[in-house]
């Protein structure tokens, strides 16, 4: 019987915690940015688009380093956060969540943006002629219609967060019980002489987790499609 060691359970729970917060906190921003990019033409739109996609194209270590510069105790934002609110995310699981969120953000925004672009604007116009103010139109028409896209974005971001390594280790280091998520634990085992067996166990756990996430998302999206009457 395959049973988990305490250190493994710790890593799994920590990974889930980090991924959960990373996705949960970035989702509202993801929807807002996706909507802006899909619907609005504003000066600097290209720049925003580029910045959002940056984590996808630069080495993760670069992102981690930039976070360190920005959010470290001496960092531009970090110093301010610490002085005013006593908040410091560096070397904590919260920092790991921030790093994951930044890395996963482009995937989330892309999926949501595509679904917003696919929404028939005519339906939103129709809702407005029926008396719905813009916010209500978004809540009762746009949001339900893009739910499958949001779900896809969330699952992609969640999976990306579970697997995040480079930015995390650069930004918040590899502290057991605090920032040592599954990939970091795996990395540690690989670095340890005689850790091959333990590494294999972690690989299996990672694969099972990822598969579970994919299957749940598939089931959810099937249910959604059924609920919407099967007509896209």
């Amino acid at each position: 019987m395959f049973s988990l060691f305490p250190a493994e359970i710790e890593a799994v729970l920590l990974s889930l915690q980090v991924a959960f917060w990373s996705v949960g906190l970035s989702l509202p921003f993801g929807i807002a940015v996706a909507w802006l990019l899909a619907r609005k033409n504003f000066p600097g739109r290209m720049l925003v688009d580029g910045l959002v996609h940056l984590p996808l194209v630069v080495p993760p270590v670069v992102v981690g380093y930039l976070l360190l510069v920005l959010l470290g105790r001496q960092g531009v934002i970090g110093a301010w956060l610490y002085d005013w609110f006593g908040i410091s995310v560096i070397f904590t699981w919260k920092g790991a969540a921030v790093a994951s969120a930044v890395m996963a953000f482009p995937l989330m925004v892309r999926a949501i943006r595509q679904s917003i672009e696919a929404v028939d604007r005519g339906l939103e116009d129709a809702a407005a002629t029926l008396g719905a103010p813009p916010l209500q139109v978004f809540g009762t028409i746009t949001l339900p219609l893009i739910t499958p896209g949001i779900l896809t974005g969330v699952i992609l971001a969640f999976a990306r967060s579970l697997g995040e390594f480079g930015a995390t280790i650069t930004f918040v280091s590899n502290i057991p019980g605090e920032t040592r998520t599954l990939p970091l634990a795996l990395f540690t085992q690989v670095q340890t002489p005689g850790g091959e067996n333990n590494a294999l166990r972690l690989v299996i756990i990672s694969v099972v987790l990822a598969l579970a996430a994919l299957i749940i998302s598939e089931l959810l999206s099937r249910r959604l499609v059924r609920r919407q009457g099967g007509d896209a």
Partner: protein
Amino acid sequence: MIDVQLQRQLPDFTLDAAFTGSADGITAIFGRSGAGKSSIINAIAGLLPPDHGRIRIGDRLIYDSNAKINLPVHQRRVGYVFQEGRLFPHLNVQRNLLYGTNFGPANGHIIEMDEVVRLLEIGHLLDRRPGTLSGGEKQRVAIGRAILSRPELLLMDEPLSSLDGSLRAGILPLIERVRDELGIPIFYVSHTLEEVIRLADHMVVIENGAVAGEGSVADLMSRLDVTPLSDLPDAGAVIDAVYQKYDSQFDLGELEFAGGSIRIAGLQSAPGAALRAHIRARDVSLMLDRPIDTSVLNVFAGTITDIRDTDGPQLDLLLDVGAPLIARITRKSVHELALAPGKQVYALVKAVAIDRRSLGGSE
């Protein structure tokens, strides 16, 4: 009254239209495809901002470029039935119908869901999703949804254009019912004469983004100078008539109008019913002497009042037979009979030329 005055530069032409819609019943906005009809009603709904203009529904000013008034779409209380329905796919029929009731003002005339469901005969569809409805069912639900939002003006943009003939015929009476029972003024955009004659009393003819004619359907149809109408193959006068009696032996209906009585094949209705008959100009022939021994049942004596000369082989003649009538005959006949304004003629209309499609009820 609904006053509309709009200017807007569009990619292909300039929209520059001013007209007055009637405060009750249906005002048809008629014109060829691409004449600017949809742009006009989109501007009224607030979906297409005009460059200049003024739109007033009763005493409510919803747009005025000078006074910088521009109510957002959701505050205009203008219902809209789109060509393609635009039902919300994620809501069932009932929730589609009720969507607009969440936002309307608490005061004012309340139209009950039950009443709308009865009027449009959609009770059996309430639990269905739009994706499972037929085209005709979708349009009925779309009409109901717009009505239930309690609009002060209802816009319909060719609501029947995506439906085939028999479905159309099924929905026309429902629209008549809405017109007669709910008292909401309706702007009905169409390029189909048949629908306009059947549904509307008032009509605005649009050509190249401007108003080519405005007035009662009967008046406009008997004018030769409103070319978007008079150029149509189906051009012809519309007469208001009252049903008299039915001849069961020969299956003929008899109507009384200002020019006398007219018999129509196969028409049964209630005596006293107000009807509107469209007599196509190409179905009217002329004779100089009173015809005898003719198979044509409808013969009217009258005077030629106007001739519209065109380049083609045929001309349109406006006749006064007590009511206006238009005859479309060849240039050759006009020449050989020396037809000219002031001349006395007899107009012949075959009783079988007027079919059910050419008739509309008006109340």
